[in-house]
C-alpha cells in the first residue's frame, strides 16, 4: 500500500475502478481528448440530421468551389459539398474503427484467454493458429478478400470483416501473455478451490484483472484502424469510392492541382484524421496511467 501524501487523495475507501476514474478525470489532456472524440462521434452519427445536402449529388456547375457561405468548406471536383462529406466520411471512418476494434478485441480476448488459461495443448494449437494468421501479408489479403467478398456483403462491412479477420492475432497474444502472468496469482487457485468453474474463473476473475491491458490495446487499435481504413481507401482498396470516408476524400489529393491549388478539398479530412487519431492516443495514454495498478492499489 502506498501511503505517500500524493496518494492519500485517493481515499482507501474507493474501489480500484473508482480510483482509476478519479485519476483519469484529473488528466486534462485526456479529458479534452475525450470531449473532442465524443463531439466528433456525435456529429458524425447525426450527420443526416445536421446537413441537408445530398452527399451523392454531383453538381457539374459547382465543381471545386472555394469555401463560401453556401459551401462552408467548398466543394470537391465533382461539385459535392466538402463539409457534408466530411461529416458522413467521419461516420464511415469511425464506424470502421469502432467495429473492427470491437470484433478484434472480443475475438482476440476470447482466443487469448482460453489459450492462456488452459495452457498445454490448447495453448499450443491456438497460438500456432494465431501465428499463422499474423503471418498473412496484410495488404495482399485485404485486396484478395475484398475482391472475394465484394458483392456478397454490403460496402463498408466487407472492409470491416476483412481487417478484423487479419488483425485479432496481436490482441490474442497480448491477452494470452497477461492471462499467463495473472493466473499465477494465488486468488485464481483460491477461486478454483471453492468450486468456481473455468468459464467463471476466466470471466469473473481473470478478465477484470487484465482489462486495463485490453482497454489500452483497444484505444491503440481504434486509432490504428482509423488510419488503416484511411490508408486503404486512399489506395482505393478500402471502402467503395461511392461511400464517403476520410480516406476516400484524401485520395483526391492525388492530383497535383488539388494538392497545390485546392487545399479545402483535402485539408479538412486530413486534419480530422490527425486530430481524431491524436485524441484517441491521448485518451489511451490517460487510461494507461489511470489503470496502472502500481498507482491505484
Amino acid at each position: 500500500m502506498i501511503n505517500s501524501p500524493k496518494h492519500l487523495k485517493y481515499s482507501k475507501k474507493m474501489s480500484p475502478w473508482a480510483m482509476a476514474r478519479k485519476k483519469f478525470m484529473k488528466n486534462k489532456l485526456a479529458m479534452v481528448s475525450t470531449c473532442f472524440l465524443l463531439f466528433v462521434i456525435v456529429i458524425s452519427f447525426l450527420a443526416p440530421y445536421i446537413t441537408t445536402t445530398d452527399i451523392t449529388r454531383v453538381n457539374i456547375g459547382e465543381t471545386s468551389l472555394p469555401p463560401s457561405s453556401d459551401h462552408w468548406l467548398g466543394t470537391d471536383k465533382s461539385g459535392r459539398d466538402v463539409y457534408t462529406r466530411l461529416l458522413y466520411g467521419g461516420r464511415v471512418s469511425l464506424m470502421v474503427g469502432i467495429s473492427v476494434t470491437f470484433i478484434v478485441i472480443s475475438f482476440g480476448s476470447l482466443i487469448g484467454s482460453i489459450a492462456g488459461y488452459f495452457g498445454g495443448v490448447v495453448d499450443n494449437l491456438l497460438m500456432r493458429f494465431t501465428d499463422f494468421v499474423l503471418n498473412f501479408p496484410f495488404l495482399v489479403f485485404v485486396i484478395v478478400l475484398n475482391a472475394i467478398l465484394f458483392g456478397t456483403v454490403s460496402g463498408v462491412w466487407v472492409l470491416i470483416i476483412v481487417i478484423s479477420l487479419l488483425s485479432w492475432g496481436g490482441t490474442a497474444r497480448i491477452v494470452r501473455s497477461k492471462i499467463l502472468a495473472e493466473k499465477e496469482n494465488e486468488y485464481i487457485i483460491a477461486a478454483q478451490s471453492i468450486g468456481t468453474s473455468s468459464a467463471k474463473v476466466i470471466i469473473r476473475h481473470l478478465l477484470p484483472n487484465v482489462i486495463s491491458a485490453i482497454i489500452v490495446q483497444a484505444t491503440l487499435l481504434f486509432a490504428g484502424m482509423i488510419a488503416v481504413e484511411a490508408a486503404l481507401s486512399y489506395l482505393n482498396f478500402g471502402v467503395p469510392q461511392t461511400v464517403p470516408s476520410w480516406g476516400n476524400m484524401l485520395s483526391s489529393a492525388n492530383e497535383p492541382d488539388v494538392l497545390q491549388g485546392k487545399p479545402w478539398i483535402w485539408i479538412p479530412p486530413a486534419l480530422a484524421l490527425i486530430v481524431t487519431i491524436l485524441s484517441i492516443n491521448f485518451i489511451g495514454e490517460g487510461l494507461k496511467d489511470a489503470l496502472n495498478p502500481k498507482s491505484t492499489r
Partner: protein
Amino acid sequence: MKNNKTLLEIKNLHTGFSINGQIYHAVDDVSFEIQEKEVICVVGESGCGKSVMSLSIMQLLPQENAKITKGEIRFNGMPLTNKTDKEMNNVRGKEISMIFQEPMTALNPVFTIGSQIQEVLHNHLDISKQAARKKSIALMKQVGISRPEKVVDEYPHQLSGGMRQRVMIAIAIALNPKLLIADEPTTALDVTVQAQILELLTSIQQEANTAIMLITHDLGVVAEMADSVMVMYAGQIVETSTTVELFSSPKHPYTEALLHSIPKMEEDVERLHTIGGIVPSLTSMPQVGCRFRDRCPKAFADCRSITPKLAPVGDGHLARCLLYHSCYPKQHRTAEEGVEK
C-alpha cells in the same frame, strides 16, 4: 482419535511433473489416512512436495505439466482421482476447502470482500443475493472480524494480512467442509497474528468438527495443534506418528534434525542448528538408496545401495530409515537378520 471414521484415504499417490519430456515425481508413493475431526500436520523443508500433495487432493495441479500418475485418493469412500473437473467443483469449497499461504494475493483485488465470500455460497447453494450477503456478514463475525457490516463492502487492499487470512478462513468454512487443508496459513503473518489465526482454526475444528490438514514449517505449531504428524522429505513420507510420540521419541534422523533446529530460549542464536545441504531437486533425486543420506549424520554404507521402505518402528509409528531393521526391503531383510542371528 483413532476410533473415528476415516475421512480421507490416500494410497500410493504418485504426482509427477513433466520436465523436458520426462516425468519426475514430486509426490512419490505417499499413503496415509485422515480421520474425521483429526488435526494432522505435514512438516518438511521447502520443496518436499507438501503443496503438490495438497493440490493433488484438490485436483488443482497445473494442467499443463502436472499429473497424478498412480494411486488413489478416497474421500468418504468416494474416489476423487477419476472425477471430472465439473464433478470436483461440487467437492471443492463444500466438502474440502483450502486456505493458502499468501493472504495478500489470495483475494481478488477488484472485488469486495463480501462478494468473494458470497461466491462460494452461490457456487454451491441456491441462495438469494440478500441471503448470501447476510450469511457472509455472519461468517465474518464468526471468524472474528469486527464491524463486518462495513468490511463486507471493502476491498482487499483496505485490510491487514491477518484480516485477509480471516476472510480466507470465512470462505473456507462457509459450507462446513469436512476437511480443511491449510497450506502454511500463518507463514506470511507476524507472530502475534499467527497465534490468533491458529486459535481460530482450533476453535473451528472443535466447534464444527472439521478435520484439518495443516502444512507447516513450524514445529512449535505442530506441538500445539496436531493430533498426528507426517514428516515429508523429497516427496516421500519419512516418518509418521502421533504428536506426543514424535516429539518424545523421533526415529528418523531427518525428524531429529528438524526437532533440533527449533530455536530454544536458552540457546544463542549463533548456535542455532540448521540442517546442512538442501533437498535434492526433482531431476537430481537418487534412484536407489535413502534420499536423505547425503545430509544424514548417521548414514552408513547400506544407505547408498538399499532403498528403505516405510515400516512400523513402534506402536502406530512408521519411519523410513535403515537404522531400523523393519525398514529393509524383504530380500535384504532376511540376509541382514540372518547375519545378526
